[in-house]
């Protein structure tokens, strides 16, 4: 390997690191607020990529159907729980929030689908369309067992991935798609060394979004509520923060991030209905480097995973994923060594 190859690999790694950074932020956000390791994150990213591909082919994206199914389930769950609590007065508002809000992007997508619209609009609609997915899933599947042990939540989350990828196959079919490049620009660095505009865009997006993320967390009341819930659920409740609402917010934000990831990687890799899993798991390695709590360490981890992956693919394309996942074990050992565990929180599945 010479310096040129190393540089190319490094830049490749940077681009994938940018994607893992965004995904890692989403995972850490959801985990810190809800204790759920949100495995279906990657699936949502894949859905946004496939939505964009459908728009480009002039078709109405099947994502609409998916969101509608989830909306119906969420409305049933919400209304069902209100009826059980005999809170009849809150039913209309619930219908509006759970039934109405997710329909907005669906209507938008249905309206513009099949028409020739500008690429920018396609991207915006694709991202918007997947935003309701995580909150709806959370309402139906995760919120009713929000107080279960972290292990049960992890199992549910894994099962949820298989559910989503099954639904993905039904709605999108087994074909892979790749979308048009977002930009054709390229930059020349030094002696004839080119960086494609797409890579630059990915890195820039990651920087801007994580910057926004940071501002939201540090400067807004909403961000502080999220942090408070992450630190101590009971304490947050005592000062008037509703954990269910902050959780919803976290799922919404992570869904948005997943949407961005989808449209960013769709032009560089062919996406299938199940491509998200591996992306999510790699981001997950990054998030674990951050202990599932630290955003800056997750960013460092994401870059490390991206670069390791890109160099690993140079030595062995087939084994690059094995290498990245095997990396998780030393990371976990280190993390576990650095974190204090209390003895008593080991109680697991109930009998």
């Amino acid at each position: 390997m010479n310096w040129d190859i190393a540089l190319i690999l490094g830049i490749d790694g940077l681009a994938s690191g940018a994607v893992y950074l965004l995904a890692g932020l989403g995972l850490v956000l959801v985990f810190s607020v809800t204790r759920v390791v949100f495995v279906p994150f990657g699936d949502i990213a894949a859905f946004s990529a496939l939505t964009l591909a459908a728009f480009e082919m002039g078709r109405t994206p099947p994502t609409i159907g998916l969101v509608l199914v989830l909306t119906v389930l969420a409305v049933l769950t919400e209304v069902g729980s209100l009826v059980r609590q005999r809170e009849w007065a809150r039913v209309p508002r619930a219908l509006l929030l759970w039934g109405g809000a997710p329909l907005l992007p669906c209507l938008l997508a249905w309206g513009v689908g099949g028409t020739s619209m500008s690429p920018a609009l396609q991207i915006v609609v694709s991202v918007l369309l997947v935003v309701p997915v995580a909150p709806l899933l959370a309402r139906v599947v995760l919120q009713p067992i929000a107080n279960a042990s972290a292990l049960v939540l992890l199992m549910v989350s894994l099962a949820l991935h298989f559910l989503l990828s099954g639904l993905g196959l039904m709605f999108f079919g087994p074909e892979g798609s790749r979308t048009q490049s977002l930009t054709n620009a390229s930059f020349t660095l030094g002696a004839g060394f080119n960086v494609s505009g797409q890579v630059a865009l990915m890195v820039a997006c990651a920087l801007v979004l994580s910057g926004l993320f940071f501002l939201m967390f540090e400067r807004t009341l909403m961000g502080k509520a999220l942090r408070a819930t992450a630190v101590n659920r009971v304490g947050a409740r005592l000062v008037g923060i509703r954990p269910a609402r902050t959780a919803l917010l976290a799922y919404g934000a992570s869904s948005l991030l997943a949407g961005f990831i989808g449209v960013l990687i769709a032009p560089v890799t062919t996406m299938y209905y199940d491509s998200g899993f591996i992306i999510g798991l790699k981001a997950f390695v990054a998030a674990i480097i951050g202990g599932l709590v630290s955003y800056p360490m997750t960013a460092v981890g994401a870059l490390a995973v991206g670069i390791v992956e890109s160099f690993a693919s140079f030595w062995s394309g087939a084994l690059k994923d094995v290498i990245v996942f095997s990396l998780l074990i030393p990371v976990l050992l280190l993390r576990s060594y650095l974190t204090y565990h209390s003895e008593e929180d080991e109680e697991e599945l109930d009998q």
Partner: protein
Amino acid sequence: MSRQRMVWIGGLTIALALAPVGLSSFFISLLNDIGISVLVVLGLVMLTGIGGVTSFGQAAFVGIAAYATAWLSTSQHLSPWLGLVLALVTTAVFALAIGALTLRLGGHFLPLSTIAWGLSLSMLFGNIEALGSHTGLSNIPAISVGGMSLGHSRDMYYLIWGLVALSVWFCWRLLGSRPGRVIRSLRGGSVLLASVGADAYRVRLSLFVLAAVLAAVAGWLYAHTNRFVSPSPFDVRASIEYLLMAVAGGIGQLVGALLGSGVVLLVKNGLQDVLPLLTQKAGQLESVVFAAWFILMLHFARGGIMGFVRRLQRARTAAAPALAAELPASDRLPQRALPPRGQSILSVKGVVKRFGGLVAVNGVSFEVRAGEIVGLIGPNGAGKSTMFNLLTGVLNKTDGQVHFLGQDISALAQQHIARMGIARTFQHVKLRPHMSLLDNVALGAHLRSSRGILASGLGLNRAEEARIFDEARRQLARIGLAGREHELAGNLPLGTQRILEIARALAADPVLLILDEPAAGLRRKEKQELSELLRRLREDGVTILIVEHDMDFVMKLVDRLVVMNFGSKLTEGEPATVRTDPGVQAAYLGGVA
């Protein structure tokens, strides 16, 4: 074993034995698949349901074994029986290596690591050329027994279900034994186990290897039943399916493995028949149905089928199993010789413990002599609990010496201190609430017995088990709980739970018994009973060190008191002397400066 259970087991055995007579070969293959899954799920029930170690990678172990035997019998043309040996050895070595690395991980890191290696291993299968890459290995020969080839599913049936029966029997025997009690106690922390001298990490590792070996047997059977292996049945999705089977059947019970595998595979098979009639996308819908089913189980029925069965059983009062006759004195667990009354057994010299800048214990010295009750008292924050943790090996001292029976114990781990004859109780009661009183106390005798997993599973431990239970019964009688042996520890009131902890400590046949605030949270009457019990123990020659808060309780009970304040020893002496000591009065009542 109850009669009802005998009937159930007998009926099931006969039904399974006769199954090939009446069923079509399609159903025989289905039963074969179920049997193979039962082996894997049995391992998961032991590991995850009972031992508390969640594994999302069990299918990878099945894969290692299946590929090992497939490779040996196809490219090396060796006997499948050698394949079995290779499969077992390879899987065990992998499990040992992975387990040694990851089983110390705490919290949710351990289950996460199982996803990592489960994924890596299953990806490896598809990327090794000698193993046929993504296409896998085909033309695997059938197993032959004494010249007869088991090529037909009807012939494999008895081999598979014979191995299932053996494995269930092994696990059942194991759970009721000495290592089994430790396995059942793994959930809920390792401090209790260390205090009775068991190493939770080693037990967990053995359990992990046992589960992997069961998966390996399944993998070997799989390879020679299907005569073909490819990577996809061993990926994370398959591992999750095994977990679904365990949860569906009831992850805490061995029978759950049988029920779960049966139900899930029957439903799967049913879906494959029904779904194509409803939709063209049957394959996709199947995985959606399974995922939804798993989620619903985790939402509404985490106990699985056995959870319901148990609830039904609880409604009817089950008769407690009869107790064995008492053993003659010559046949009991050996007892150690106690040191003569008055001899110094514990000597603490200038012990210092610093936490960063904070000096929690500052140059404390005292002695405990055989046959006396010594109280270690002091106001809040005096350093009593730290002292306690230093004596029992939970913490390491910064400076000074602790000698027990003439040996320096200050650098020893908890298990070794327990082995030397110091038994303890806990301030926050650490019992296993789902285990009977007898089992809880039997845990205390861990170090006085020696049978391991293999011997116990094979049933070579009967004499020793009888001795352990005899000892546990006598200790229960000693503290006044005779006749309640089969109640669950979790159903006892707090006061009785504290006394039960003392019985567990006594089952270890200790030289020195250290009690951490035994009177905390007790009612007046319970305190009186506790005092009487401790006095009786002193008469029997047990030496007791009590760390306590309750002055009234201690003053009436102990022979000598050691008073600590702000990490240092304030004074030492008989209760009457200590009571009049102006320094002690100042410490407790805030004297005039």
